[in-house]
């Protein structure tokens, strides 16, 4: 067995030089590639572009809420119908076209083959198809902005009968395009997810046992399994809703033997596991980052996995906590309250594992570490406020208020946005071969996190005071307004504007570093996992010589070693063997 250092020069195996003479046209390299890293980039850039669109929509409707009835700079007058479209599309885009493609698809594609020591996915062409279907879905969704009556305005949960009849939601064409786009997006992630699962099951490097797989890979794979198991019924449900809209079927029509509640069950049977589909990859990313920058072994690798499995299983029996006021049987509400409160136990345990990992570590406050730590802090607020909403008694009051809005933004923002920035700051050197600027990174970090809190803490207060999330302008319902809340609404809007403004620092940092950043070494963070044993950026085919794995991914500060890290592929030298 050659050591990695000599292997890098002496490889020229049958596999390595095959790729060295690969000349590709622009079309084949960037648009028709089957390379998992290129597909990851495609997902990443598409997701980032959608995030900018989603952020712009949030800016527009927040301006309307702060200054109702006035022209919004950069948009114009927000009418009630447009307002509905704006909030619907903001939610849809951020969940399905930002959180999912970036966290699951982009990082799943980039990290899984590299971290398990493989050259690509087991089905590279299916992988390419997955992105193409995803791109098509994004185009269908964006096209719906420009059809007659505009984009769908029936809320991102798309409850019938509102969503089933154009006469109710006033956006008949937008509603059908929305369903079509969402269904296509599901197909894309089913293709991608099954690929992830099978690649991890069958494509691992020799020596990598179940417990040697880095947590982020585990988390993305489990997220893909959760997605697969939860989305099936909703695919069926989406087809049924589409038929109700277009062919006059009676699935959700109570007048003809259907039941509108059925959609809520199908939607939330998917919708709640979906929260964990987005959360788990972020938890995995954070686990990788905090172990590297605390220079400590993860406090409980298996504990994290067991709790993840527990979370995954429990996530399938909590969905009706979204429907406490929908008229479900109160005895059922009791059951779902209990399961909902139960699911906070494994998640809390996981957070404790992360905190225990930090305890006594030699912590380096780099940009990725700051993002990872802020994930723990911010997600904690989201988790704790979830306890209020999971208890059916409190939820009857809080339902559909801004308290709910603030709560789920405190879960999704840390997962999707903070998780994405953490991962980008951490793996940027491996993706693009250069280091990002730390100063710009820290300015961006503090601006984003502070502005995020300025945006959503006021909404907890207005929500607790009774602000309803579906109201377009309280100026039209003065009898329902409470004095003193308008200032908080304005504060929240200012938070959004500052939050969006600070993203400029990220964009500058990202594109400036592409050309001018410090050239990244192979292993800039002195990390253990396999992706750091290949050159930066990772070459086509990944590994010059396919690695063999000797240990778990978190062997930091192992006693009796000169260096405080121990790469997974480093064989034990005879000297070390004697010392052990």
């Amino acid at each position, binding site marked *: 067995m050659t050591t990695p250092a000599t292997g890098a020069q002496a490889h020229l195996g049958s*596999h390595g030089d*095959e790729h060295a003479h690969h000349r590709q046209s622009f079309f084949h390299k960037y648009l028709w590639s*089957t390379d998992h890293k290129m597909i990851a980039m495609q997902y990443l850039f598409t997701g980032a572009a959608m995030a900018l669109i989603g952020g712009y929509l949030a800016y527009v409707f927040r301006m309307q809420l702060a200054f109702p009835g006035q022209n919004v700079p950069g948009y114009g007058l927000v009418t009630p119908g447009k307002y509905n479209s704006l909030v619907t599309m903001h939610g849809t885009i951020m969940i399905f076209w930002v959180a999912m493609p970036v966290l699951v698809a982009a990082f799943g594609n980039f990290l899984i*083959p590299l971290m398990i020591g*493989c*050259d*690509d*996915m*087991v*089905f*590279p062409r299916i992988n390419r198809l997955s992105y193409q279907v995803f791109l098509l879905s994004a185009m269908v969704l964006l096209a719906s902005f420009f059809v007659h009556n505009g984009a769908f305005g029936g809320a991102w949960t798309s409850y019938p009968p509102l969503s089933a009849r154009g006469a109710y939601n006033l956006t008949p064409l937008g509603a059908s395009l929305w369903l079509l786009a969402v269904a296509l997006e599901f197909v894309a992630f*089913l293709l991608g997810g*099954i690929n992830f*699962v*099978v*690649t991890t*099951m*069958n*494509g*691992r490097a020799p020596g990598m046992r179940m417990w040697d797989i880095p947590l982020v890979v585990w988390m993305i794979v489990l997220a893909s399994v959760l997605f*697969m*198991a*939860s*989305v*099936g*019924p*909703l*695919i*069926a*449900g989406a*087809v*049924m809703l589409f*038929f109700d809209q277009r*062919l*006059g*079927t*009676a*699935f959700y029509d109570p007048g*003809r*033997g*259907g*039941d509108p509640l*059925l959609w809520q069950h*199908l939607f939330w*049977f998917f919708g709640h596991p979906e929260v964990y589909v987005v959360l788990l990859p972020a938890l995995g990313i954070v686990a990788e980052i905090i172990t590297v920058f605390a220079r400590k072994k993860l406090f409980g690798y298996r504990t994290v996995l067991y709790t993840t499995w527990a979370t995954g299983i429990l996530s399938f029996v909590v969905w009706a906590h979204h429907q406490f006021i929908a008229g479900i049987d109160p005895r059922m509400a009791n059951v779902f309250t209990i399961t909902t409160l139960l699911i906070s136990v494994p998640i809390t345990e996981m957070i404790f594992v992360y905190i225990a990992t930090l305890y006594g570590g030699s912590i380096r406050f780099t940009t990725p570490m700051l993002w990872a730590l802020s994930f723990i802090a911010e997600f904690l607020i989201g988790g704790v406020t979830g306890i209020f909403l999971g208890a059916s008694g409190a939820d009857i009051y809080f339902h559909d208020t801004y308290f709910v809005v603030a709560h789920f933004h405190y879960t999704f923002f840390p997962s999707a946005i903070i998780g994405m920035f953490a991962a980008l700051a951490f793996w940027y050197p491996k993706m693009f071969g250069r280091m990002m600027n730390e100063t710009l990174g820290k300015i961006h970090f503090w601006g984003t996190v502070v502005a995020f809190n300025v945006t959503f803490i006021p909404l907890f207060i207005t929500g607790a005071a009774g602000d309803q999330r579906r109201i377009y302008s309280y100026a039209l319902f003065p009898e329902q307004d409470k004095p003193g809340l308008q200032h908080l609404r304005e504060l929240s809007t200012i938070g959004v504007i500052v939050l969006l403004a600070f993203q400029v620092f990220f964009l500058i940092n990202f594109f400036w570093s592409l050309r001018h950043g410090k050239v990244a070494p192979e292993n800039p963070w002195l990390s253990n996992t396999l992706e750091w044993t290949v050159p930066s950026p990772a070459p086509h085919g990944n590994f010059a010589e*396919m690695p063999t794995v000797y240990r778990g991914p978190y062997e930091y500060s192992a006693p009796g070693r000169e260096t405080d890290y121990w790469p997974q592929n480093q064989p034990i030298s005879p000297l070390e063997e004697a010392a052990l």
Partner: protein
Amino acid sequence: MSSRSIANIRSVTGIPTARLVTWWIIASEIFIFGGLLVSYVMHRLAHPEWAIAAANTNTKAGAFNTFVLLTSSLFAVLAHQAADAENGKKAAKFLRLTSLGGAIFLIVKGFEWTHEIKEGFVLSSGGFWSFYYTVAGLHGLHVLAGLIIMLIIASDAAKNRDLPRVQCIGLYWHFVDIIWIFLFPLLYIAK
């Protein structure tokens, strides 16, 4: 693709990747059909009057189709056996017999639906018919897709190429069969 990638050579679980992914695809399909069927059963329990609509389905045609589909699965097993014995020609013959079963199934279905539509029972005729056409239609699409893929695999198998695929399409075909075993009593017999 100039050569097989490392990813395609490895098989850490010991299960060939093609068979493994077939199982995962079947798993994902189970959730799609599961969602539909559970929705249907819940509605059916809440609406005893759907039995009147269900009485209009042709149980005899359904029973005949069940027999055809189950027989075709036997041929799928025989094709697998032939493929295991490296006998591509024989495997192709059995695969074509299997797809013949699928084709008969679809033709009978076509007559059934034509008859029902002529009687005025269409997709929008109410709760039962919405489910009837959607569930059976989705199943029919799976039969059609399986039939086409099977003919492609058969033409390769006849040249002794890609014989492991015979087993994968067989797995899928059994799955489509099993779904029908659920649909037949739920849509035809329960009255």
